[in-house]
């Protein structure tokens, strides 16, 4: 049981971080379909820190890994910003390209790195068995991961920034009615860049959190299995509001956790459902949830539309 809670919480943390990232981008008016790719690159950033700095103290390791993921995510999201904000490119195409590019680039990079150390090692895997221990604390059976706390802090920060600060008010105005924001002297382009870069930070964090969730090594060829898109479903289900997103993330995290731990529950094993079904569960649930909520969902009005000053 504590295993189920533990997995639910860690997967919920991943989904919440990434969904909040999507939420910042969309509130600024940009649809970030590249979150999946940002997660991969963020994960790469964090994993590299673990790989290159083996003997850091626990606080330094946590700080280093977080910084690595954040910086990589931030830089990668800039590719979305340039294309979609400055060049008014189609946000769907660019997001898709970034997802494909991330996995390919991470694979090429890690393979080259592995091969340069050991010419026989042509895998795209990074191991971090010992380094990972820095992130864990045990309370009896329960394995606490510092990322659970980081996710809660990120949630509070998102809530305060969006609803209690000047920046948040301006950001949301840009996603709803950019020409109104422009008319009171807000620089829409700048705000949209901020939204995209913040989504890069959150997405990067979500990425490293994901590869630290259940395993101690990561094969970068595998990407992140649609988690970036599950997070978008969480964001829609959460109606673009941080607190609701957190609750939605818990629900989705629970179904994702089931596939890791269902064999620990006698009554689930007795049902004799193939394990593959549990793998499919999060995706099926998200389809159902989207079908039920999308009809009345209220996305930021101007999202996906490049801002063009001359068409005010």
């Amino acid at each position: 049981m504590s295993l189920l809670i533990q997995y639910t919480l860690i997967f919920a943390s991943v989904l919440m971080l990434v969904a909040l990232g999507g939420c910042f981008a969309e509130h600024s008016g940009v649809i970030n379909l590249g979150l999946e790719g940002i997660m991969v690159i963020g994960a790469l950033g964090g994993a590299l820190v673990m790989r290159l700095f083996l003997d850091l103290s626990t606080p330094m390791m946590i700080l280093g890994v977080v910084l690595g993921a954040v910086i990589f995510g931030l830089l990668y999201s800039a590719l979305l910003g340039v294309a979609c904000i400055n060049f008014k490119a189609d946000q769907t195409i660019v997001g898709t390209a970034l997802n494909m590019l991330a996995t390919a680039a991470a694979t090429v990079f890690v393979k080259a790195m592995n091969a340069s150390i050991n010419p026989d090692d042509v895998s795209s895997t990074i191991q971090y068995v010992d380094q990972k221990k820095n992130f864990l604390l045990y309370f009896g059976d329960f394995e606490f991961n510092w990322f659970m706390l980081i996710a809660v802090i990120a949630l509070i920060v998102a809530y305060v920034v969006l609803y209690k600060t000047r920046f948040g008010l301006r950001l949301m105005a840009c996603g709803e009615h950019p020409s109104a924001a422009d008319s009171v002297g807000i620089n829409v382009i700048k705000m949209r860049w901020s939204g995209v870069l913040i989504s890069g930070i959150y997405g990067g964090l979500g990425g490293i959190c994901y590869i630290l969730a259940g395993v101690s090594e990561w094969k970068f060829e595998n990407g992140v299995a649609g988690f970036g898109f599950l997070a978008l479903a969480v964001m829609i289900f959460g109606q673009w509001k941080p607190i609701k997103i957190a609750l939605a993330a818990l629900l989705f995290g629970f179904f994702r956790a089931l596939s890791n731990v269902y064999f620990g529950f006698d009554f689930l094993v007795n049902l004799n459902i193939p394990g593959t079904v549990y793998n499919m569960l999060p995706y099926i649930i998200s389809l159902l949830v989207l079908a039920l909520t999308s009809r009345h969902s209220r996305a930021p009005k101007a999202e996906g539309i490049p801002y063009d000053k001359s068409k005010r």
Partner: protein
Amino acid sequence: MKKNILKSDGVQAVIASLICVVLGVFVGYVILLIINPDGAFEAIVAVLKNFMTYSRPDSQLRYFGNTLVKTIPLILCSLSILFAYKAGLFNIGAAGQYCVGICASLYAALAWGWSWLPCLLLAVIVGGIYGSLVGLLKAYFNVNEVISGIMLNWIGLYLTNMILSAVKEEASPYTINIRTANPDALIPSLGLEQLFNNNQYITIAIPLAIIIAFIVYIILDKTRMGYEIKATGFNKDAAKYAGMAEKKNIIMTLVIAGSLAGMGAAFLYLTGFEQYIVTSSQVPSMGFNGIAAAFLGGLNPIGAIFSSFFIQHISSGGAYVDKSIYASQISDLIAAVIIYLCGFVFFMKVVMNNMIAKREANKAKTGKEGGEN
């Protein structure tokens, strides 16, 4: 007055695509240089040469055939994506539709012992049904087709793994080889293989795919259905105003798109070229590469034939890089960069038009013959 050929939309599209290709390859080269400057040039040349790496003409022909065999499903996937895109729908679910197409064609061939044509038709139908799910969710529940498409990709992958486990080889995760188990299910070649040094994977799938590309072109450009689909894609409110059945069009478009992707899967797996791995943890990349091919081909069905060949050419070429230094995924990387750059095509066209306008204005100033709008 002489018409400037640069003004033509088609010419501009070709130029834009060429720019994307050159820049994409260049970025790939730069990354190879960063990894290891010594072998970078040979590596990028290997990617671009692909089958031409072989010195003997008959080997070249044989491996050219292999590239063609894999180009066929890519053409179908890119047709699937561009067809839906004309109706304003981004069919990222093509990958999943392709996946269930594999599932249907292989299961029918191996478990039921069907011959190739019914296997092919089943893949088309199952792909179409799978595509219709995206359409139904979009039309009746307003679910964004990109997100539902991705979800269905993963569901399709796990379903396929589960179902095809019943027809796998005992000692490996591969599905049983069709060539030995049920040769009837192989698409016939009608002698075409002789053109490619008896490459046994060459079948009539190649001419069929090209014919289908032309049919898609004719449907989109010359028929009532194409008129309706494009009107819906450009302005769905106006389509509704004009009395077109919006929901029906969305669903029908995605059924056709799904069928095309499913057909693509059958066109590859019913040649025996590949066996499916039932422990796959990745949705087949064919559907995603189809996005690259569709946009690189300027969203034109005929263009898709050429762009698909190019994308497959460099994908296959990735296998020839020195793997002790570089990863074969360098070609995926180039393909991804090309899609990214395709996002800038609109901007490139604006720049081209501005350049033409400027030049004409200059001409009008110096001589009097130019400058008509």
